[in-house]
């Protein structure tokens, strides 16, 4: 919970900061914290990914982009009222929704009893892969992963299409 | 040789012929003689199919019909020829021939540009008119109603100059708007209320159990939704459309468009509401007033017009409302009158327009005040004009007399004194705005200096030919009214 509070603090920092460089670095820190939280939540694979992606790749990319553009953010012109309304609206909707959610850490919630438990139960007999996450990722829900790979592929080609310089300088 | 075909095949043939003709015209657009030959041949063929073949069948009591094609959700594309439709179909296909002859003379005489599109759209419009005439249900009718609107839009904007475009805009938007916003909902309302949109003798709404108010509202949606009937206040597209060349005006006023309008009104009243049901429900009383008002008001406006075609236009508006009025009287006789007036007004009004066009072609005159003594230079034209005018006023020996006679009889029968007053009054008005023209043309001396008015003779031969034919038709309908009469009586008898 301390970590979570810390996260909140960093977020505020990100919103306030004008220097984009600082923002990016803060975002990296944010991702690391997030990763730690995930470890606490037993999501080690996710934590690893978040660390490598959120803190690693994203930061590098953002810095690269910054290198190509500008480092300082201009003063916002228009009022912050509308965004505030939007954000608060979303928040209210969520509080309304989450209030009915089962409490933290319970084992007998529908989510933890239905399919999830199923995986743990059947996984080893069917795949002999101890890491349930891997087996679910690659086999049970392999198609999601295929889609995910497709997303990467699309993004990669997309970035190349947009940024790549060809000899003729297209 | 087409006698061997069944009714359904004949209907399809009648609808297809003008379309094929349109293609042929478009194909032969380069060679004008060939093109106009195609036009005439198509018109002739259509005439053979509709008048010479289908008409006898209908008169013999047959009701040729096509097997319905389901379009969607129980809505069908169906054609059935009942007497009223036959009447309208006959009028349209007959006058098409005359009008084509006339157009050839007129278009060449005035060296109009873009003649090929003109003939193409014309043929398509005829096909649309026939589709309306033969429609077996409201959906089919609506379909061809829009075909007619769209195919005549290029004709109205034929001159393609600014005011042509402006009036074309009025024409399209008014007709489309009324049909889309009023007619379509009315049709769907009918579908929801009655469960069908087929035309059935005696009406389909009798069982729907609508309140009088709802019925009146629906009738209003129909009347004003059918903008082509030009009941005030949805009339002003008609004067606006005057910018078009005369053959187009003839098409609008006599052959297809406005006739399609009033035809639809009568058809809806007879086959959707049902005369008796409407009469008992008393939902149509307001219509008598509305139509009567239109008749008088339009005549009064016509009185103040100096432009010949404009005056004719307003006269058309008032004459159309005769039909609506007669239909609103809801007595058998007046219904017959309404039906017959469709035919009578068609021939006489086309004569008048032909005459106006002939004057324009020969002398390039458009204003009534310029017509002094023109009767001596163009005896045929003005003679025909006189006959047409007489028919408009409703004097024997012309077709207009008969239909008016029936209307009055119907009004008397239904003891509808409003209608009777209106008819008599408007007759007086008609006389007031037509007779002066004739007087000018024949009895006033032509203007002195010939520099302003160079000597000119009759219009081109085809023009004179056409208007003579229609003039004779106007008289013939008085002496031999069998066909329209029997058709309209057939309409009133429950099959």
């Amino acid at each position: 919970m301390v970590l979570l509070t810390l996260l909140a603090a960093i977020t505020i920092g990100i919103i306030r900061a004008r220097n984009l460089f600082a923002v990016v670095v803060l975002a990296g820190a944010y991702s690391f914290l997030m990763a730690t939280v995930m470890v606490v939540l037993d999501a080690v694979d996710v934590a690893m990914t978040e660390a490598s992606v959120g803190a690693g790749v994203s930061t590098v990319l953002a810095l690269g982009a910054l290198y190509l553009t500008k480092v300082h953010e201009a003063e916002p012109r228009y009022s912050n009222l509308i965004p505030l309304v939007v954000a608060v609206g979303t928040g209210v909707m969520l509080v309304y929704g989450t209030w009915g959610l089962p409490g933290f850490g319970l084992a007998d919630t529908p989510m933890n009893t239905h399919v999830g438990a199923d995986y743990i139960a059947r996984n080893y007999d069917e795949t002999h892969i101890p890491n349930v996450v891997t087996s679910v990722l690659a086999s049970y829900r392999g198609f999601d992963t295929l889609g995910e790979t497709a997303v990467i592929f699309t993004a990669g080609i997309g970035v190349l299409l947009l940024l790549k310089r060809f000899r003729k300088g297209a | 040789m087409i006698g061997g075909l069944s009714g359904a095949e004949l209907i399809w043939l009648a609808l297809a012929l003008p379309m094929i003709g349109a293609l042929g015209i478009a194909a032969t657009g380069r060679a004008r003689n060939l093109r106009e030959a195609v036009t005439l041949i198509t018109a002739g063929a259509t005439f053979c199919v509709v008048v010479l073949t289908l008409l006898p069948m209908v008169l013999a009591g047959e009701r040729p019909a096509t097997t319905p094609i389901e379009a969607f959700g129980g809505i069908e594309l169906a054609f059935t020829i009942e007497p009223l439709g036959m009447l309208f179909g006959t009028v349209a296909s007959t006058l098409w021939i005359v009008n084509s002859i006339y157009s050839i003379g007129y278009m060449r005489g005035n060296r109009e540009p873009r003649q090929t599109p003109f003939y193409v759209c014309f043929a398509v419009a005829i096909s649309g008119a026939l589709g309306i005439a033969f429609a077996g249900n409201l959906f089919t009718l609506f379909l061809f109603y829009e075909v007619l609107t769209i195919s005549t839009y290029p004709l109205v904007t034929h001159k393609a100059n600014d005011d042509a475009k402006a009036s074309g805009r009025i024409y399209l938007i008014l007709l489309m708007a009324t049909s889309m916003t009023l007619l379509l909902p009315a049709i769907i309302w009918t579908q929801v209320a009655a469960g069908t949109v087929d035309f059935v003798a005696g009406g389909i709404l009798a069982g729907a159990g609508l309140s009088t108010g709802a019925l009146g509202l629906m009738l209003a949606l129909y009347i004003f939704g059918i903008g082509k009937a030009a009941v005030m206040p949805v009339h002003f597209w008609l004067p606006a459309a005057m910018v078009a060349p005369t053959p187009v005006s003839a098409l609008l006023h006599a052959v297809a468009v406005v006739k399609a309008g009033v035809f639809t009104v009568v058809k809806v009243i007879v086959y959707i509401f049902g005369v008796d049901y409407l009469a008992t429900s008393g939902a149509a009383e307001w219509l008598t007033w509305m139509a009567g008002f239109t008749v008088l008001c339009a005549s009064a406006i016509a009185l103040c017009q100096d432009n010949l075609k404009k005056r004719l236009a307003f006269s058309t508006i008032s004459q159309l409302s005769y039909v609506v009025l007669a239909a609103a009287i809801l007595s058998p006789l007046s219904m017959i009158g309404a039906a017959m007036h469709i035919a009578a007004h068609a021939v006489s009004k086309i004569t008048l327009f032909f005459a106006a066009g002939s004057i324009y072609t020969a002398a390039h005159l458009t204003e009534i005040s310029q017509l002094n003594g023109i009767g001596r230079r163009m005896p045929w034209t003005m003679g025909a004009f006189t006959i047409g005018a007489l028919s408009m006023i409703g004097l024997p020996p012309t077709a207009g007399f008969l239909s008016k006679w029936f209307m009055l009889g119907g009004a008397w029968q239904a003891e509808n004194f409003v209608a009777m007053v209106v008819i008599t009054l408007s007759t007086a008005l008609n006389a007031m705005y037509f007779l002066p023209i004739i007087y000018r043309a024949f009895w006033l001396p032509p203007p002195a200096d010939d520099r302003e008015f160079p000597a000119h003779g009759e219009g081109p031969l085809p023009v004179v030919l056409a208007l003579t034919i229609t003039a004779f038709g106007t008289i013939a309908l008085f002496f031999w009214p069998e066909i329209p009469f029997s058709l309209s009586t057939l309409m009133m008898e429950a099959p």
Partner: protein
Amino acid sequence: MRMDVILRVTAKLFIPFILVFGLYVQLHGDFGPGGGFQAGVIIAAGVVLYAIIFGKEAATRVVPTWLVEALVPLGVLIFAGVGVYGIVTGGNYLDYNNLVHAPPTKDEAVHGQHWGVFLVEIGVLVTVTSTMIAIFYAFAGRGKE
């Protein structure tokens, strides 16, 4: 930056370890945290580091652009190909059970699953690595103007 000896030496020392660690993560994915995606990112990171320190040109000499751009689709091809092979061997799409022996006994099905997961992870690895590198090249190729 290019002239900094210490950086270059340390980098030269580190990069191999990074790559090896990446492979470890890849292959150990079955038993511990890790898998194609994380491994791909790590390996890519190695190359990126190399490019940052020794310059893009040096990096492209080691890992040429055309190769990277060919590998991006190749990974998807492997993954989707395995799926199709699942059909060919009589199962559904992405069915690994009879990847090795068809029709499989229960153990052979497990064997097939192993192979399937392995190949699929390879596919992910290839695409992710090459995409990351390609994106980095693309950004780097865009000089400031």
